[in-house]
């Protein structure tokens, strides 16, 4: 087909209805204009095999596995963690009975920041946003009766990842399982904690050392564990665009890869275990295109820049969660619809694993009913709608391919900008990433307040609502009970063993040996997470945030 003829015909079409010329220009999330209509002329330059290829083949734009959902549907992995290890165990059993296929553990803030439940900074925070873990005993309770060889467990833990992995390996041993059979994911992405999520402990250098120690330990001992879950999710929640989400996450990942290579690791030994968590937001087509472009960029980066030979190193396998920040406290049932559309986008994009938010999240911790509705949202998509009947169903849409190409270019531009500054660590330490995200969050808020960006039920179609008391309140006794459990354990364990384990930890931390075996010995002596992090705080120091306001 002659492209110029198509362009000519398009011009004619555009003039055929005078109304068309009056339509206000539309823009993508990242600010590029959207055409009123896409035609083959918009994708005429596309080289199918080079830029898209087949599922399971370089550059994986259409999907990372040859059979995608035809072979195996995505993993349904709802995020949960309740105020005590015992309640968390009960919730996990419930979710597995209801057809969930993987676990995802939310930890409370003291655990994420490396404080024991009885530390003064933990007051009021124990068991609030997830489960508290002070010692191996808590993890034993969380996973009681759950055979680890039949599960995959994702743990949203960053700075103390090495300790949580050590505990998981130890529970496996207690169940008679070798580490090599364990499957799961550590978030372990501390760079985004500095920019948006806030659960950092140590400065970048020792933090990245912990990451590479995990890479090395797992490549030898726990080969089926995803050692890191690089996160675009939280930056997007904090307000950045789709382009920034991918570009900043990829830049962070490059920093981890370079550290791994500097530590002498072979790219193909650790790159296949890098996994991802991204944010699937409201703009359905843009979100699908985002993932298609991201898969291609990642594959090219790993092959061409890092010399990966193993195709698995080049595969962008990702988990996605729908956007919590897009949900509203007003008319909460509207969130069921938002979550369903976002989940649809994730499925059209070929996600490996999905968590659908609960409709009451903007109000409180989710109830059992709202969690079940999220689970059913995924099951309805999977089993009733036919969206899994063919691979990459959006592929070949002129609009989708044009968007994919545009995102590919925009993401690479921003990655080059970060690279120019000296990479992710530099761009974080000079405040660039934080300021970019903050600026855009503020712009978005102003657009919402001016009514330019519609939020149904908030700045449009609002109604008078009576506020309901929140039923799903956390157990008010949880904090005291957890502290009592911890203190009882402290008096029961062998203090000599703990002291020895912590002394060994200090020595290794001061040197450059791999910390994993030492941390495993410490957790098995029932040293607490706070004690282990305390030693590491003394040796490594604590991160001092960059001021951007």
């Amino acid at each position: 087909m002659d492209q110029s003829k198509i362009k000519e015909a398009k011009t004619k079409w555009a003039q055929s209805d005078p109304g068309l010329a009056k339509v206000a220009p539309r823009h993508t999330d990242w600010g590029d204009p959207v055409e009123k209509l896409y035609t083959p002329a918009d994708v005429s330059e596309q080289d199918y095999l080079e830029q898209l290829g087949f599922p399971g083949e370089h550059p994986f734009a259409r999907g990372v596995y040859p059979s995608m959902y035809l072979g195996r549907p995505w993993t349904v992995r709802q995020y949960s963690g309740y105020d005590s290890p015992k309640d968390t165990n009960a919730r996990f059993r419930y979710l597995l009975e209801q057809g969930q296929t993987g676990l995802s553990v939310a930890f409370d803030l003291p655990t994420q920041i490396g404080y024991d439940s009885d530390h003064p900074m933990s007051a009021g925070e124990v068991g609030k946003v997830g489960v508290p873990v002070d010692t191996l005993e808590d993890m034993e309770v969380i996973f009681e009766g759950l055979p680890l060889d039949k599960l995959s467990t994702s743990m949203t833990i960053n700075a103390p990842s090495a300790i949580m992995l050590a505990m998981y390996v130890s529970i496996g041993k207690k169940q008679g399982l070798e580490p090599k059979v364990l499957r799961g994911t550590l978030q372990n992405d501390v760079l985004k904690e500095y920019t948006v999520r806030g659960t950092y402990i140590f400065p970048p250098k020792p933090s990245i050392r912990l990451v590479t120690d995990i890479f090395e330990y797992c490549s030898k001992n726990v080969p089926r564990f995803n050692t890191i879950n690089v996160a675009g999710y939280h930056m997007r929640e904090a307000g950045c665009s789709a382009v920034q989400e991918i570009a900043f996450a990829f830049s962070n990942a490059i920093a981890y890869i370079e550290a791994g290579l500097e530590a002498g690791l072979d790219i193909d030994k650790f790159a296949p275990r890098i996994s991802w968590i991204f944010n699937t937001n409201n703009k359905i087509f843009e979100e699908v295109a985002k993932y298609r472009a991201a898969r291609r960029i990642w594959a090219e980066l790993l092959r061409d820049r890092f010399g990966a030979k193993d195709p698995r190193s080049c595969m962008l396998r990702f988990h996605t969660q729908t956007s919590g920040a897009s949900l509203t406290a007003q008319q909460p049932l509207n969130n069921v619809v938002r979550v369903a559309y976002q989940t649809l986008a994730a499925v059209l994009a070929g996600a490996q694993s999905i968590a659908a938010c609960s409709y009451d999240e903007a109000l409180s911790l989710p109830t059992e009913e709202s969690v079940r509705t999220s689970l059913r949202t995924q099951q309805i998509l999977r089993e009733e709608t036919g969206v899994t009947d063919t691979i990459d169903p959006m592929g070949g849409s002129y609009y989708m391919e044009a968007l994919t190409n545009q995102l590919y270019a925009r993401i690479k531009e921003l990655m080059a900008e970060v690279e120019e500054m000296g990479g992710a660590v530099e761009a974080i330490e000079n405040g660039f990433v934080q300021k970019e995200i903050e600026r855009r969050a503020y712009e978005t808020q102003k657009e919402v307040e001016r009514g330019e960006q519609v939020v149904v039920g908030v700045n449009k179609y609002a109604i008078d609502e009576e506020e309901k008391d929140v039923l799903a309140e956390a157990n008010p006794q949880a904090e005291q009970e957890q502290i009592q459990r911890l203190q009882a354990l402290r008096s029961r364990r062998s203090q000599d063993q703990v002291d020895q384990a912590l002394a060994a930890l200090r020595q290794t931390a001061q040197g450059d040996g791999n910390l994993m075996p030492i941390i495993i010995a410490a957790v098995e002596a029932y040293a607490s997470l706070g004690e282990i992090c305390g030693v590491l705080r003394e040796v490594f120091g604590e991160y001092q945030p960059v001021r951007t306001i």
Partner: protein
Amino acid sequence: MSKRIRVLAAKPGLDGHDRGIKVVCAGLKDAGMEVIYTGLRQTPAAIVATALQEDVDVIALSTLSGAHNQHLPLVAQLLREKDAQHILLVAGGIVPPQDRATLKQQGVKEVFGPGTTMTQIAEFIRANVSLS
């Protein structure tokens, strides 16, 4: 010319969700106020000490981790102990309605929930602040 309103914005406790507070800081600055932001992981004692040192008119706390009943009443109590009740204490974030009522009795003048605009917050501060 009237004195500019000075606001201390702070994140008490361990919560890292700071999108909201940062947006509010920018909004209040654009509304003509002076804003000092403490950053994350502030104890009530540190917040009140900074407020007194900086001679602010308003303390704006942000909390989304569910620990509001721990930190907010402590800030209010410390303000009373330091005889600094002239400082307007407001909060924002995810706070269930039943807790909001209790916090107001304890000295938090207003708790802004999700969907509140920057304009509403600025107007509330102007209407309720007592400038020293």
